[in-house]
């Protein structure tokens, strides 16, 4: 949906609050869905254990490997659940401070992990290419994630099934750049560009479209606000 950013400052703030909450909700909904899948597997596995015990009461002995498989499955799914909860917890705390010192590798890796399910639903692979050294800037973690999410969402809703979207983090003389790229030459239309620009304006960031006939490439720039 195309949103025209209002000129009035208080209207802009209202829109930022509403759309910020909507972004938070989209991530929370996706995470809760994924946790529900984890829970479903654990519940069915507990049920399977119940079936085995009921069978044992009727004289069908439980084999050791059956119990081992049940144990392995529960362990695997609880680890999966723990990873999802940690990611969500990190994301939830990103609203604690409007401006903070951010380690960008960790921030981008986390939001990419949270968005993988949404990409996967559109049969799109999402991969992150981070820096080997820590890369920190002062900025708004929440707004950076929101801007990145809004750009990626346009890739997800374009017909890119089977393609890989690479999110590359690079240092820049003023801060950092994030490049969102896919080898597909299909046009990715940034529907809510006005609103993305409004988000970026809050933290002096900018967006540029560097797509050509061979690839789609959008670059987001975020300056270090401590400079």
């Amino acid at each position, binding site marked *: 949906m195309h949103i025209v950013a209002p000129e009035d400052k208080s209207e802009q703030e209202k829109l930022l609050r509403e759309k910020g909450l909507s972004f938070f909700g989209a991530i929370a*909904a996706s995470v*809760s*869905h994924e946790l*529900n*899948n984890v*829970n*479903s*597997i654990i*519940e*069915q*596995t507990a*049920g*399977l254990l119940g*079936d085995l015990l009921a*069978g044992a009461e009727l004289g069908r002995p439980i084999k050791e490997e059956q119990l081992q498989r049940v144990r392995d*499955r529960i362990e*695997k*799914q609880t680890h999966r659940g723990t990873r999802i909860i940690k990611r969500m917890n990190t994301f939830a705390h990103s609203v604690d401070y409007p401006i903070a010192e951010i380690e960008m590798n960790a921030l981008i890796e986390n939001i990419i992990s949270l968005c993988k399910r949404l990409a*996967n*639903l*559109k*049969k799109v692979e999402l991969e992150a290419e981070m820096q080997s050294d820590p890369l920190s800037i002062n900025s708004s973690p929440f707004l950076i994630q929101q801007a990145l999410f809004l750009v990626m969402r346009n890739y997800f809703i374009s017909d890119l*099934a089977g393609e890989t979207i690479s999110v590359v983090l690079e240092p820049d003389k003023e801060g950092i750049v994030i490049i969102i790229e896919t080898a597909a030459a299909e046009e990715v239309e940034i529907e809510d560009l006005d609103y993305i620009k409004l988000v970026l304006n809050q933290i002096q960031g900018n967006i540029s479209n560097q797509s050509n006939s061979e690839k789609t490439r959008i670059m987001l720039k975020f300056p270090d606000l401590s400079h």
Partner: protein
Amino acid sequence: MANILLIDDEEEFTEVLSARMETRGFNVDVASSGEEGIDKAKAKSYDAVILDMAMPGMDGMETLKHLLNIRPGLQIIMLTGHATVNKGVEAVKLGAADFLEKPAEINLLVEKIKQAQEKTEILFEQQLDKKLSDIMKKKGW
């Protein structure tokens, strides 16, 4: 023994659920995508299909439409997440037999499958009656 097709992209979920259903006397085939489920439904007749709503690529709703197109009257039970219950209602309006919220309780699922199986038998009998009636009319008996 009822033939069931279970379509869900969560492979561990289908693995455990199908094992539990088999111990309850069902023959269960598994598909990990809508496309695979459609191929299996084209090749074999099922008493009921259990279909997850949220899947990569072709989602549950789209798969439901294709399945009903190739097999009108097929009994399809949708599995929904909390947020997709409204979609479950929408699916029933489109022709799904029923829907269940995940995590699905096995006894409830078995009950719904049995109801679906009964509907399949009634539909089969109705079709058979219609065919016989058409033949009798045609032959003037």
